[in-house]
């Protein structure tokens, strides 16, 4: 088996055959269909996992994850790219506040879905800015992610202080008016999100390939996950997101390098921010 892996001194790269074996296993045994994920990305993640777990073949790797209590959660924890930040792309948040919040302000209630929220930094960032705009009291934010490990993390609402350098600057660049300490209580090495924000936040595990967790959202923020999908899956997911938005006066925000051009129903949206990919649903 090991001849299928290129065994040079430092890095082993997974072969297409091994990759396909693993994709097949995930679908059949873990009920996880990643056949429409970006191939190049999948290869990279598999290669990384094989190296981390010192597996020389798909078989060996599969045996290792089958020993885990929850193979699916274990696999997803290591497979998914969970890198996130508070106020990632400050320009995005600033434009959201300027272009979208005034429309939301006119509503009686605001429901927001942060889809693929990873460990929740995006959700906390949104809550902070809603608070500063005087909108938090009528808002509910739902954060979801396919990875249960990430959802657990997000629910703890506890972030390592060490990882937070730079967040203050991004917060200010996003238009933040005070200081992050107003929202995060420092306890030793951790910063804990204060209850007055958490009151408006909910987390749940959810796969974007399935039906949305609710309907009638005013804003869906779905950033930096479509890049891991091929065009087909982007189309399917965007169609589900579009349906989960309220008709009229509702918004969709994607990652800066993502787009709706692979969505067959893209004429349902009007682009309101080209640089930061904010769209308004029109039909």
């Amino acid at each position: 088996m090991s001849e299928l892996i290129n065994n040079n001194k430092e890095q082993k790269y997974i072969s297409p055959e091994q990759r396909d074996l693993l994709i097949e296993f995930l679908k059949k045994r873990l009920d996880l269909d990643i056949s429409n994920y970006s191939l190049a990305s999948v290869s990279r993640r598999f290669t990384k996992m094989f190296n981390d777990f010192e597996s020389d073949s798909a078989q060996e790797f599969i045996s290792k994850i089958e020993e885990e209590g929850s193979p699916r959660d274990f696999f997803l924890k290591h497979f998914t790219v969970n890198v996130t930040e508070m106020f990632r792309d400050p320009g995005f948040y600033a434009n959201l506040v300027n272009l979208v919040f005034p429309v939301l302000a006119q509503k009686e209630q605001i429901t927001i879905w942060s889809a693929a929220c990873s460990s929740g930094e995006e959700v906390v960032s949104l809550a902070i800015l809603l608070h500063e705009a005087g909108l938090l009291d009528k808002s509910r934010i739902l954060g979801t992610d396919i990875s249960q490990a990430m959802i657990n993390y997000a629910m703890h609402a506890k972030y390592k202080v060490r990882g937070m350098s730079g967040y203050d600057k991004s917060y200010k660049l996003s238009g933040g008016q005070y200081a992050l300490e107003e929202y995060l209580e420092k306890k030793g090495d951790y910063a804990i999100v204060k209850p007055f924000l958490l009151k408006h936040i909910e987390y749940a595990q959810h796969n974007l390939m399935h039906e949305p967790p609710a309907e009638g959202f005013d804003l869906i923020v779905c950033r930096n996950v479509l890049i891991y999908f091929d065009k087909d899956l982007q189309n399917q997911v965007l169609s589900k997101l579009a349906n989960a938005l309220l008709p009229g006066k509702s918004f969709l925000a994607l990652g800066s390098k993502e787009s709706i051009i692979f969505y067959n129903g893209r004429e349902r949206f009007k682009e309101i921010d080209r640089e930061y990919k904010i769209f308004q649903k029109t039909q």
Partner: protein
Amino acid sequence: MNTRSFKRPNKVIVIGASAGGVHALKTLVSQLSPDFPHAVIVVLHRLKNVTSRLDVLLQSFTRIPVSEVEDKEDVLAGRLYLCPANYHLLLEPDYTFSLSVSEKVNFSRPSIDVSFVSLAEAFGKKGIGVLLTGANQDGAEGLLALYEKGGRVVIQNPETAQVAVMPKAGVARVPKATVLHLEEIPDFISNL
């Protein structure tokens, strides 16, 4: 009049550069002819949060259309693509780009290694990797992966590079690489 082609490229060329890279790239792109039959993809280390428009800058030195990559965009002949800051750039076998925000590699995102490895896997012999000036070792490992898959490996002569560390690391990892002066590289890749 710019008649843009929508053809698949003959070869897919990834150029990696770091410190001193902008200057080297100006020289390089200004010598590419507009009917260039390959795709050129530039992966340059940039400082975080630098917003200077590299696409605008490089466009002023070439008639080849220059643009920053969007996810799942097509890889076309006669185009110059720039990897966006803070994303890794990957190539798909169906001639599209994928971006990723995964962990930094060699303390960098984008990482040149990541793009070279994905070039090797997606295009093998059709892949060309070019490593220019830089002050770290990113790219060397990926060049080896490309070389092993039959792709061409071109490295800027370390003696003439503004910063020699990166091309030196490349030559150490792939001793059989084609080592060229910066001014020779455009001709070399045009005649592939």
